[in-house]
């Protein structure tokens, strides 16, 4: 193990280390593999050290061929060449099994890499393995994995959030500097918040969905979870781009989100880089359901925004409460259809000795899917059924349009919207299974963004107590921008992080055996 590599380093720092030849990409990969192998959060689903080290060796050869200064030339961004990343097990990979944390895909190996995986590999990143998540990304606490719940590195009794819980836990535990996630109703932002990390979900259509196992196709987006806004900016730029294999992919020029991240929002005093930035606080996000600790931490962060020159104003998103039922109609409807392909016929789990075709279908799916997935398939099948379609699906689509209009109207009066990510800090793992409805309601601040297809970011802004163990659990704040304004989100978060150190906090050692 190289002494120069320390846990909880961010990507930017590791990139500088590689460029200085402090350590090699292979040493970094081996270090990461060792951390992941010793993980105690249950965030790891698959490691293939040979494949990882093969990629690291190739990356190091590219690094060696470069003059040292060339590797650092991309300031304020940095080269991803030789840096490790791990993927949520929703992205298909050739060299690692892909299960979507479901028994129905146990041991499945894809013949191709997801576009996001392939793009990061093309940027020279070294894949360290596959990470746990809620089964088919359905859940808010990562308790719905066929391979067991993931523990929060800040408090092993707590959930890490979900559905990208393994991604957040692995980064928070200091195993790896960054991971990919997917966000259908908050699945990047909420675990980032609950694990004290920075994560961003881009505008719908920015990141290709090719190779991302579909949960709800019209809502799913990929994005990074990392330590800093700068790391997220560099990762997001590498992940996004038009892909002809995804018909919903946006045809945009590739954008370097890190390029102007240091620059002020507008011309103003040097110590107030966010001068002129109008930050809207939706009154519905600060209403009764919001926990006191979260409210306090978010309000303090907003005070910091003010100190950085931003002006705060109240805005309204009147359909916020309706986004829950709308989401929990549309997402299960799409899921019920998307998951029909898991039928035991061509791949994945097949029931033993089926009596006939119906028995093959019924038992393969009954044995292969977990309870939450079954619940959503049933809800989705119901709302699409003849006689109910108009009352549920069509109505939900109407609400979806209204939710999007609410955001449009709110952005008339502000540049960014800020608010909490979740009403509370992470709940306890043993509370999770009791009431699915409580879990759905906890998504209230994140769902609208997916319904409207907007970009949104989560970053750490404090801690709350949450349990009787005395361990603190992180609190996140959400920033929401108009369509395609990711660079503004990242810039605002970067200036906040340049002035604060919430993102530098690390949990007591638990995540890996030391």
């Amino acid at each position: 193990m190289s002494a120069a590599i320390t846990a909880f380093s961010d990507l930017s720092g590791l990139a500088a280390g590689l460029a200085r030849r402090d350590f090699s990409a292979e040493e970094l990969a081996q270090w990461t593999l060792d951390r992941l192998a010793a993980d105690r959060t249950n965030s790891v689903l698959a490691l293939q050290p040979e494949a990882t080290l093969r990629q690291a060796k190739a990356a190091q050869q590219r690094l060696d061929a470069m003059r040292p200064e060339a590797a650092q030339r991309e300031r304020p961004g940095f080269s991803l060449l030789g840096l490790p990343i791990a993927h949520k097990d929703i992205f298909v990979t050739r060299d690692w099994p892909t299960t979507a944390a479901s028994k129905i895909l146990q041991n499945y190996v894809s013949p191709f890499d997801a576009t996001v995986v392939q793009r990061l590999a093309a940027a020279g990143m070294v894949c360290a393995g596959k990470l746990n998540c809620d089964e088919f990304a359905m859940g808010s606490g990562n308790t719905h994995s066929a391979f067991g719940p993931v523990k929060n590195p800040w408090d092993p009794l707590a959930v890490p959030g979900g559905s990208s819980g393994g991604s957040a836990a692995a980064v928070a535990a200091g195993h790896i500097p960054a991971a990919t996630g997917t966000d259908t109703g908050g699945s990047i932002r909420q675990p980032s918040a609950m694990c004290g990390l920075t994560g961003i979900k881009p505008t719908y259509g920015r990141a290709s969905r090719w190779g991302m196992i579909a949960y709800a196709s019209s809502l799913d987006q990929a994005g990074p979870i990392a330590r800093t806004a700068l790391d997220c900016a560099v990762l997001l730029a590498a992940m996004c781009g038009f892909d002809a294999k995804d018909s919903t992919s946006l045809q945009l020029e590739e954008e370097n989100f890190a390029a102007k991240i240091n620059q002020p929002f507008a011309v103003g005093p040097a110590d107030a880089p966010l001068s002129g930035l109008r930050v809207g606080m939706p009154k519905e996000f600060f209403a009764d359901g919001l926990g006191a600790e979260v409210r306090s931490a978010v309000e303090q962060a907003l005070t910091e925004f003010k100190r950085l020159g931003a002006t705060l104003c109240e805005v309204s998103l009147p359909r916020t409460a309706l986004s829950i039922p709308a989401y929990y109609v549309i997402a299960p409807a799409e899921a019920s259809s998307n998951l029909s392909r898991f039928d035991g016929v061509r791949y994945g789990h097949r029931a033993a000795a089926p009596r006939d075709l119906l028995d093959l279908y019924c038992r393969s799916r009954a044995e292969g899917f977990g309870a939450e997935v079954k619940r959503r398939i049933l809800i989705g099948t119901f709302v699409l059924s003849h006689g109910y379609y108009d009352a549920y699906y069509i109505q939900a689509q109407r609400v979806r349009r209204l939710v999007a209009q609410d955001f449009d109207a709110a952005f008339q009066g502000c540049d960014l919207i800020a608010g909490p990510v979740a009403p509370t800090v992470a709940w306890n793992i043993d509370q999770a299974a009791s009431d699915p409805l409580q879990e759905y309601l906890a998504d209230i601040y994140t769902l609208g963004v997916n319904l409207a297809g907007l970009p949104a970011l989560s970053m750490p802004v404090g801690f709350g107590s949450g349990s009787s163990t005395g361990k603190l659990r992180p609190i996140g704040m959400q920033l929401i921008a108009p369509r395609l304004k990711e660079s503004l989100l990242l810039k605002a978060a970067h200036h906040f992080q340049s002035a604060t150190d919430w993102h530098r906090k690390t949990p007591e050692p638990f995540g890996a055996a030391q």
Partner: protein
Amino acid sequence: MSWEIVIGLECHVQLKTASKIFSPASTQFGAAPNTQAHMVDMALPGVLPVMNREAAACAIRFGLAVGGQIAHRSIFARKNYFYPDLPKGYQISQYETPAVSGGQVVISIDGRQRHIELTRAHLEEDAGKSIHEGIAAIPAGCSGIDLNRAGTPLLEIVSEPVMRSAKEAAAYARALHSLVTWIGICDGNLQEGSFRVDANVSVRPAGQQEFGTRCEIKNLNSFRFLERAIEIEAQRQIELIEDGGRVIQETRLYDPDAEQTRAMRSKEDAHDYRYFPDPDLPPLILEPAWIEEIQSQMPELPGAMRTRLAEQFSLSDYDALMVSATRATADYFFQALDAGRSLGVDPKAVANWIMGDVASSLNRDGLEFEQCRVSAVQLAGLIARIADGTVSNKIGREIFSSLWAGEFDSADAVISAKGLQQIQDTGLIAQLVDEVLAANPKMVEEFKGGKDKALNALVGQVMKKSQGKANPQQVTDLIRSKL
């Protein structure tokens, strides 16, 4: 009681695109099982569909050909049901908004023209095939799945329930088949399933306004079967009602061996397909500029060609209809005309040959027009030799047979090899006439007694003696003048 049969057809037309509707796999027929199944067709985790614009272009061509409304924006929906040859667990199909609405197809029945109104034509993907027997690799009691066909683009063309006889339905199906091959969107191969028909059949007492309960007969892949299946199904429904029974709405299959239709599934077992717009595919936008571009590349359509054949070449309506029955027939006609232009070939003669010996020879040998054994150029050469009096019509037909058999390359080669030129020497013909008249005094008497039949017999005798090489008109005139 007299009954009226009501028929509407749903025709599944396989579009002639190089690749599938949502994947890059080839659509070529007959490959080894599952060798033309892309991972999109297999519905592997993480795959997504991408619309093949060529399939959309086919829908536009069809819309233009039938004068239908082409939707500038149409939606693909998911039709959800489980079946082993449907890998995704849903079929992507246009549901609420088809690419083409309305339009009509002209058919000809008993010498009259009828316009058959269309409801819609929508794009969708085909399923794979389940193979239950006949493959050694599949153990007994198991079924095989071949996904080569999965994702093949289809245009489903739905007619209004406006046909009133099995014959009319078959005529419509033929006309539609001819049209889709004419405009080049379908190869028309019935054996390979490129053109499959479902027939909705109901009966009602003549004069009644409301429709009776209908049954759908699935997957008819020959016009003969279609006609027969409808006849049998209508008869079954009539007998059922006359015996006091009631038709129940169901899907039926036609068994040509047993000459009956059999229930497949009733409406009660019908799936709830849970249609909803496919979130993986944006609306299909058919830009006006694209439609115009395709319009400018459209071939002359059968209707316009019929008019032109009648006006420009003075063909009768019937001849024009027959010549434009299929693209291959029309191409053959015009090729023969081109080749015969400098040889004084008459369009009417070409049409007659096509409808006569060409059609009957194809029919006899079970060939399609594309496989015609006498080329248009050969036919033009033959007609020229009849027109210029080198050979008679009768000898012409012998030459045709000889060309069909592939014995010679051209009519001229047959004529010179077999010495079939008409006798031009008037003295020689007069000599033959004299001989025949002398040898048949009885017939001569009969003719003189007013029997015209006797004249034909005498002409026949002379023709026989000349081995068919005399000009029959010349012989007739000579006999008349001599008697």
